[in-house]
C-alpha cells in the first residue's frame, strides 16, 4: 500500500466518500436522537415525539435548531480554549473511526474499481483502537475544562472506564484476528462473506460468540451507554462531564455519543456480522450491476448497524446502571479473564484445525 500516490480522481473519489460518510454519520446521529426518544417512548408504552412533522420526523431538526439558538455559556472559571476543544475532539474522534469501515462492496465507476471505503489500511483494527482510545480526551478535557467538581469526577470516571474496557475489547478482538489473520477491515469482511448459508456460517458471531459478547459489552462501555453511563449519570453527577456545556457544544457531545453508537454498531457489524454481507443468500450469483450490489450491501450494513443502535437503546431502557466498583470488577475481573480464555481456546482450536 502506498499512502501518498495521488491523482485527481483519487482525490475526488475520496473527498466525495468522506463527505458522504460524514454526512451519513451526522444524519444517522441526528435521527438516532429521534430514535432514542422514540424507542424509549415505545418501551415505556408511550409514543414519543410526534409533533414536529409526521410522527415527529422533524424533531431532530427542531432540537438542532434549538441547540443552535441557545445562549452559549462559557463559565468564567473554565479553561476557555480547552472548553471549546473538548466537544470538538469528541466529535472528531467519533467521526474518525468511520474512515476504515468498508461500507459496501467495491463500486465500479468508469472502469475503475472504487472501494466503498475511505482508507483500506492494513492496520484497520488498530486504527480503530487508536481512535477509540483518543475518544477519552473529549470527555476528559471537557470535564476538566469546566472547572466543576462534578464534571471532573465524571470525566475521570469516564476515562478510567474507557481505558479499562479497551483492554478487554482488544483481547476479545485478538481471538477474532487469529481467525482472520489480518488487521485489514476489508479482509475481515471478505473472510466472512464467503461461507455456507450465504456466508452466515463464517460470520464471526457464529464462530466467536463469547468474543462478540465481550466486544459488545465493551462497546457499550466505550460509548458510555447505560448500564455503563457513569460519566453522565444524572442522578449522581448532575449530568456528568458536560454539565457546564450549553448550546451546540453540548449538542456536539450528544452528537458524538450517537455517532459513537452508530459507528460501534457499524464496527460490530463489520467485525462480527459479516459487514455488508447479506445472510443466507449468495450475492455473487445474482449477476447484477456491482454498483447496485454495493448499494444493497451498504443498506444491509446500515440495517445491521441500526439493529445494534436499537439494541443499545433497548438495553438502556432495560438494565440499570452499574455501581462504579461493579463496573471495574466486571471489566478487570470478569471480561479480561474471559477474553483471555476465549483467546487461548481460539488459539488452540486454530492450531488444531491447521494441523
Amino acid at each position, binding site marked *: 500500500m502506498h499512502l501518498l500516490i495521488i491523482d485527481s480522481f483519487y482525490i475526488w473519489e475520496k473527498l466525495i466518500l468522506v463527505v458522504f460518510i460524514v454526512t451519513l454519520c451526522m444524519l444517522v446521529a441526528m435521527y438516532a436522537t429521534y430514535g432514542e426518544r422514540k424507542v424509549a417512548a415505545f418501551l415505556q408504552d408511550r409514543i414519543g415525539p410526534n409533533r414536529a412533522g409526521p410522527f415527529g420526523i422533524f424533531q431532530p431538526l427542531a432540537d438542532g435548531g434549538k441547540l443552535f439558538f441557545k445562549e452559549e455559556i462559557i463559565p468564567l472559571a473554565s479553561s476557555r480554549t480547552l472548553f471549546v476543544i473538548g466537544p470538538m475532539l469528541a466529535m472528531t474522534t467519533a467521526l474518525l473511526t468511520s474512515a476504515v469501515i468498508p461500507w459496501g462492496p467495491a463500486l465500479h465507476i468508469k472502469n475503475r474499481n472504487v472501494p466503498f471505503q475511505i482508507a483500506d489500511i492494513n492496520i484497520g483494527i488498530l486504527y480503530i483502537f487508536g481512535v477509540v482510545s483518543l475518544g477519552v480526551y473529549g470527555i476528559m478535557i471537557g470535564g476538566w475544562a469546566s472547572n466543576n467538581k462534578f464534571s471532573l469526577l465524571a470525566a475521570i470516571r469516564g476515562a478510567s472506564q474507557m481505558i479499562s474496557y479497551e483492554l478487554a475489547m482488544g483481547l476479545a478482538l485478538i481471538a477474532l484476528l487469529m481467525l482472520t489473520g489480518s488487521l485489514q477491515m476489508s479482509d475481515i469482511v471478505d473472510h466472512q462473506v464467503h461461507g455456507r448459508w450465504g456466508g452466515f456460517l463464517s460470520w464471526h458471531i457464529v464462530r466467536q460468540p463469547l468474543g462478540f459478547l465481550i466486544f459488545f459489552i465493551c462497546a457499550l462501555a466505550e460509548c458510555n451507554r447505560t448500564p455503563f453511563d457513569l460519566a453522565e449519570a444524572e442522578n449522581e453527577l448532575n449530568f456528568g462531564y458536560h454539565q457546564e456545556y450549553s448550546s451546540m457544544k453540548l449538542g456536539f457531545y450528544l452528537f458524538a455519543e450517537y455517532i459513537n453508537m452508530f459507528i460501534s454498531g457499524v464496527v460490530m457489524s463489520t467485525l462480527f456480522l459479516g459487514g455488508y454481507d447479506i445472510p443466507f443468500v449468495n450475492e455473487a450469483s445474482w449477476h447484477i450491476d456491482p454498483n447496485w450490489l454495493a448499494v444493497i450491501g451498504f443498506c444491509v450494513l446500515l440495517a445491521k448497524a441500526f439493529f445494534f443502535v436499537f439494541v443499545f437503546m433497548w438495553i438502556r431502557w432495560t*438494565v440499570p446502571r452499574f455501581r462504579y466498583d461493579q463496573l471495574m470488577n466486571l471489566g478487570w475481573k470478569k471480561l479480561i479473564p474471559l477474553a483471555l480464555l476465549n483467546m487461548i481456546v481460539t488459539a488452540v482450536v486454530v492450531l488444531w484445525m491447521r494441523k
Partner: protein
Amino acid sequence: MQLTQRAKQVDRRPMNGWEKSYLPAILKGMGITISHFFKKKATIQYPEQKRTFSKVFRGVQILNRDEEGRERCTACGLCAVACPAEAITMEAAERQPGEEHLYREEKYAAKYEINMLRCIFCGYCEEACPKDAIYLSQTFAQANYDRKGFIYKKEDLLIPNPKEDPEAYRRAVGERPVK
C-alpha cells in the same frame, strides 16, 4: 399470612453459574421491555384529546356566586381553619350600602388567597363552607413562571358572573352540579 393476593414468594436459592452471569436475567428483562414495545400506548394527545375525569375529581378551587352573580363568600374563615395545608388566607370587609348586588351577605372577603403550591386538593374547604362559596373544580392549576403566580388571588378564583358572561360561567362550573 398474605396481605394481598399478588404477594410473591422471593426465591432465595443460591444462583448457579449461568445465573450468576446475570445474562438470563438481563435477557428476561429485555424480553419484558420489548414486549412493551408492541403494547398499546397509553399516551393521550392532550390538548386535542382529554382524559375524562371521574365524578369526584378535585381540581382547582373556585369561589362561587349565587344566581344573581353575587359572591357567596362571607369570609367566615372556616375554610382556612379546615385547611390542613394552611393554604388559605383571607381578609374580611363590611359591605357598604350600594354594594348589595356584589355581595350576598353583609360581610365579604376583601382578599382571598389560596397558595396553590401548598394546596393538596383535599376538598376540606369545600366541606367546611357553610355558604357553598368554595368548590373544587375539574381544572388544573396552570403552570407558571414564578412562585408568586401560584398564589391565586380572589380574581383568579372567582367564577365568572353568570349574568354577565353565562358561557364562561358554565364552562367554569363544568359538569358539576351547582348547589
